[in-house]
């Protein structure tokens, strides 16, 4: 068994235990330990990645990846859903930074604007509307904590091994000729990146863009209909307000 496989297995086990300890279990005990274990697992996992070209690239990638993954873990494990939403926003910023560094400037900005600007704010609105006062009991326990943590982290471990194996084999066999370097002027890294993306979007993929626009319109109408038809009906426990619409 090679050394890297042992380290990856160790990181997976550590991450599963750490995430289980961090998940809400009805008690606060062990959360800090879980965080430390998960952080150690993240460090082990990132240390096994192949080195990038330069030190600055490497450092930037490691910082952004750690921010994105650690914030995502916090978003999944915090007990207060408002904090979950805020951590999710920080994870989005990390992902946007990662996209920015590999030549997807427009997508990075679009992610921040659409996700952090619109979707996250909608989440917070719904939380303000629907969150009961105090900490709800269903936020303090989770389903099948150990099993869920094991499943999630084993998925990560298996995917990492598979990706590393396939890519290194392909690289050794010379099946992939990375086109990044020689055709910088015309592709993703071109100086006029956004103009080229727009050309591609409204040229080759025009029909897809139109369909996406129609889908957005249909979804908005559908959301309005759902809230009007299903939401206003008073529940048995809530007192019916005078003038409320009855079905």
């Amino acid at each position: 068994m090679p050394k890297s496989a042992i380290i990856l297995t160790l990181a997976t086990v550590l991450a599963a235990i750490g995430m289980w300890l961090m998940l809400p279990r009805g008690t606060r005990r062990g959360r800090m330990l879980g965080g430390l274990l998960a952080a150690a697992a993240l460090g082990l996992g990132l240390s096994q990645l192949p080195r990038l070209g330069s030190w600055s690239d490497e450092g930037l990638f490691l910082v952004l990846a750690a921010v994105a993954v650690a914030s995502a873990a916090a978003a999944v494990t915090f007990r207060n859903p408002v904090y979950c939403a805020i951590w999710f926003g920080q994870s989005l910023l990390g992902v946007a930074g990662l996209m920015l560094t590999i030549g997807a400037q427009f997508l990075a900005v679009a992610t921040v604007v659409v996700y952090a600007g619109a979707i996250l704010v909608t989440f917070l609105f719904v939380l303000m509307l629907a969150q009961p006062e105090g900490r709800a009991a269903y936020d303090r326990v989770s389903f099948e904590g150990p099993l869920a943590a094991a499943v999630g982290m084993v998925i990560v471990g298996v995917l990492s091994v598979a990706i590393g194996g396939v890519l290194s084999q392909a690289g050794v066999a010379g099946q992939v000729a990375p086109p990044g370097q020689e055709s910088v002027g015309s592709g993703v890294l071109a100086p006029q990146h956004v103009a080229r993306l727009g050309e591609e979007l409204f040229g080759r993929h025009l029909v897809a863009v139109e369909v996406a626009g129609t889908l957005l319109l249909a979804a908005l109408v559908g959301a309005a209909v759902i809230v009007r038809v299903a939401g206003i009906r008073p529940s048995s426990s809530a007192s019916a307000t005078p003038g409320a619409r009855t079905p």
Partner: protein
Amino acid sequence: MNPELALLNNYLIVGAMLFGIGVLGFLSRRNMIVMFLSVEIMLQGVSLSLVAWSRFHNDFGGQVLVLLIIAVAACEAAIALALVVALFHRRGNLDIVAWQALRESNLEAYHDRPLPAEPVIAGPLPHLPPAGTAPEIPREQTEHRSKL
């Protein structure tokens, strides 16, 4: 491993990490909004992988696909949050267990185990001294109710 291949490898693995964390959250959390947040984290992982492939093949197809993912995620957020609000009006909380009557007929019901009480803040809480007198508001103004 040459630098471009290493870049692809690293970004795919970060995408896989985000995906796995999203799976974990979706499987284990009980709050419907947090479950939905986990799905969004999974979408972020997939988007990151697509951007990495787009860089590797020097092709804009992956980035166009990510734009479409963002559009579909916005639709999904609108519909799902509308559904969550509707479900909240029916049951009065965001607990997914409140809807466990929809489970398969051969599954047992999920029962909550009793939780230890939350620690309460000890000691007297500060309060502000009253300042001024309460204003007099006419009765019809306090009972006014706009037509619903």
